[in-house]
């Protein structure tokens, strides 16, 4: 019972962790205009290709906002009427949260967007790993039942 489960799990994990290199368009220069308003970014998701030279233009509409990209550790800030720009190379694939870096109100820590650098399959991988986890758990659960019934043993001090 254990071996097939482990084998299946190993295969799925391997699938889950394989880097993706197909389906890539050739990198280009991209200019993305992001509008920031308490408490969201528009567009909520910035879609680029791996290898693109991305220029983000941040335009705040109601107060001073910032934009900071997880994983890339890039940051810019903009005052309404004074958009700011930042150019970087999107060399890391995946989905990265984009967070506001200037306190813009009570819900500021929850002002979140996304940068998606394709090709990526972060969610797919995580989903596959969740299924693997389920299968492993099921395997372990059935093993547990095969042990004699549990009863807390007394332990003298």
């Amino acid at each position, binding site marked *: 019972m254990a071996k097939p489960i482990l084998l299946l799990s190993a295969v799925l994990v391997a699938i889950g962790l394989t880097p993706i290199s197909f389906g890539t368009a050739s990198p280009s220069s991209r200019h993305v205009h992001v*509008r920031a*308003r308490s408490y969201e970014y528009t567009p909520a998701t910035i879609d680029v290709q791996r290898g693109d030279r991305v220029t983000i233009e941040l*335009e*705040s*509409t*109601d*107060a*001073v906002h910032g934009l900071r990209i997880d994983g890339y550790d890039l940051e810019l800030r903009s*005052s*309404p*009427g*004074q*958009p700011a720009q930042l150019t970087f190379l999107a060399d890391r694939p995946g989905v990265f949260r984009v967070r506001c870096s*200037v*306190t*813009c*109100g*009570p819900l500021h820590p929850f002002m979140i967007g996304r940068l998606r650098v394709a090709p990526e399959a972060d969610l797919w991988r995580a989903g596959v790993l969740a299924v693997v986890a389920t299968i492993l758990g099921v395997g372990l659960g059935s093993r547990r039942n095969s042990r004699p019934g549990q009863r807390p043993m007394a332990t003298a001090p």
Partner: protein
Amino acid sequence: MTALRRASSRFAPQREHPGGGTPAAHPAGNPVGGVPKGTAELGARAAVGLALGVPLILLLIWWLGRSDGVQLIRARVAESGGWGPDALTAQVGEPLKLRLTSEDVVHGFAIGHNRQPGIELPPGEPVDAVLIFERPGRYVFYCTRWCGPNHWRMRGTIEVTGDGPSAEAAPIPAYVALGIDLDAPHPAAVLPSRRPSVDRGAALGIDLPTRYRSRDATLGLGPSDLWQALRDDPATRDLADSQVWDLTAWAMRSVVSGESLAEGERLYAENCAACHGRDGAGEAAAQREPAHAAAEGETHAVEPVDFTDASKMLGASPALLQGKILRGGMGSGMPYWGPIFTEDQLWALASYLWTFQFEGWL
């Protein structure tokens, strides 16, 4: 007190039967009559008192820290109250100590008619400032970081009393002296077929009479009026209409200094672009969402003007533009900048606006 001690526990203990089923127990730490109010208990009570006292001490520290001669000012968006307090007093020559704290978004603090840069107020972080006034009078302080649709309403006053030369009286605005009605429509009488260019106008090499090269003489002349005057002048007889437009642009440019335009550009970016747009078209970020604006009670009969609209702009004289900036109040939420900008700054801004009409203006 006895009433409070009425016992109603459902779990009464069992009476101990002598020789009954209770096995031998470890000797209890203490016989009947423990050690209720021994030193240990008193020590514990003292510790509890200390633990409860620490927050009170903290409160006391806070209270004492508030009254050390510093004026606390909180900054909130105008919809939540703006500056609190917004009316201060000071004495000539005596330092006015302020502790400014923003309570929501990034604000800024600056005094009108003062060339010193504003102090940025990051939310939650108190910033100390000391102001010393040399002249009595009424000063206006305002927010320098766009913080919402009513950002321009975030203003307060400082009344300074004492000995000293009083501030110079504000000069009579040019539009008043020239008798210009700011609210009357000013359509351009003539429109160019293409955007006039300052560089092309300069390249024409025409020697303009001095009356067109004097700032004061041309204050009341809008571009289309100036074009008409130039058109009627014999020196431009051989020029096409569009070339006269180029000449007009160059003539207007030649009475303005580069530094003034640079300042105008900076002031525009910091103060005007949020409503009027970086491209001057009036469809700017802060105005872009009418539903949002309406929800905040900011419905205006008039939208911010489009500086790229030639029919309006080319009929406006520099004095008219400066007057509108100074006075505001066109039913569009346009602030009155008179108390904030100096005369020079107002003219710099007004002059900058032509960049939306003329090529090569900057």
